[in-house]
């Protein structure tokens, strides 16, 4: 099964998490572990939300909001796509992710993909 694993941070912590040079090496090591386990399909870090834009659909109108989104409780700072046997296996890998002790609260969210049977059911 494929899962997307998102790195989520609190808006006010974003500056410390995104582009943190000290985390590059432990992250490289972690990615190396994932690669050697054969589960890593894709990975990316995202630029800070200061460079982000949101398109907001509301009550039939469309507007654009510029970043940064420092008020946000959760900002996606990066993601991986893994192919694992079970969600529990993904949890065991996620648990091993290196963390920066100076950041207050971060989380990894594991989201399984819809598989073909789900999509088929939706189409029917």
């Amino acid at each position, binding site marked *: 099964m494929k899962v997307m694993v998102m790195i989520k941070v609190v808006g006010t912590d974003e500056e410390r998490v995104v582009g943190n040079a000290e985390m590059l090496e432990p992250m490289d090591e972690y990615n190396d572990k994932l690669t050697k386990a*054969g589960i890593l399909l894709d990975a990316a870090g995202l630029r800070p939300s200061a460079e982000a834009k949101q398109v907001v659909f509301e009550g039939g109108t469309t507007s654009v909001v510029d970043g940064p989104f420092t008020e946000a409780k959760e900002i996606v700072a990066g993601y991986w*796509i893994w192919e694992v046997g079970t969600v529990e296996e993904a949890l065991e890998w996620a648990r091993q992710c290196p963390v920066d002790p100076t950041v207050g609260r971060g989380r990894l969210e594991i989201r399984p993909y819809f598989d073909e049977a789900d999509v088929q059911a939706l189409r029917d």
Partner: protein
Amino acid sequence: MDARRTVDAVWRVHSARLVAALTRLVHDVGLAEDFAQDAYLAALEQWPREGIPDEPAGWLLTTARRRAIDMIRRERVRDEKYALLAIDEEAGTGTDSELLSLVFVACHPVLSQESRAALTLRLVGGLSTEEIARAFLVPPATIGQRISRAKRTLAAAEVPFAVPDPDDLPARLDAVLEVVYLIFTEGHSATSGDRWIRRDLAERAMRLGRMLAALMPAEPEVNGLVALMELQASRFAARVGRDGQPVLLEDQDRARWDRTLIAHGLGALARARALRKPLGPYTVQAAIAACHARAPRFADTDWNAILALYDALTQLAPSPVVRLNRVVAVLQVDGPQAALDAIDELRDDPRLSRYHLFGAIRGDLLLRLGRHAEAADELERAAGQAPTRQERTLLMERAAAATR
């Protein structure tokens, strides 16, 4: 959270390196696996009660190592082994070279091919006997016997726990890749039974392949095999119709191809080619699959490139199935009469006489040439040879439609 599922997941994630580290200590893969299994059972008993340890992999290794030391003390096995165990108290949970050695031992040529596949799934994939049995559609007792016999054979042959020497490496690596691809095709094409795709098994093979590619980055064929598996697997969802019937490449909804797998597969193919060594058969097959993956529509397929690649493959790995697939490329490049001439050259090959795709393709060519009655005969014969119910039904329908 379900503790049993957690223990299983932790086991799945760490068992290969755990067994690899233990094998280096006790010099016997069967014994190492027994100790690892002991640790797994201990985890099943303790973790639900006492909670999951902070370092579950370290916990499993420490526990397994303690069992190993206990046994060695009890049975007073040779002192040198005990000395080694004591020295290695600080060892980690399996280095890359230990993991690789484990793969090469599990796929050692003293074992039969089916034993290699079962042992690899067991030792490297962390699957239980029951899971392997389910995957290969055989009774668990058969797999259990196969695995214990394989372990005895390895011990009797005193197979060293090491990555092969450079001289032996090419042949030994071929054996490993063969096992990985065998596991993949077992999941991909389901040679027996009615299940068209057993995706889990194919995914396991792909993980094994990616692991090997990361551990042996200088070997182009490992990346070639990864690319081949991923590009084929990218079409899984589109390969099966609503009622489970197979959908031909030409008719597949390409929007349902898995773009993540295609991207990763094309990347692996590029890495294989970047090594600038002569292309091996897996890489050439991956290059063929890549021609399909890159074509937005069937009509956009670069058949000239595919035909050239099949010509190369016929030289590298001449097999009747390769020559049969080449016929399909001839059809696209030179038309049905040229393709019929090409397939008729294969007619006398006894390996193809019972292969349903021979009749399926020949029947299709006859149909394109307007020879309906002959086409119907050929398709009916092919239906009788089809290994799955879905393929049989599809071929019968095409046979009936031929003379309608």
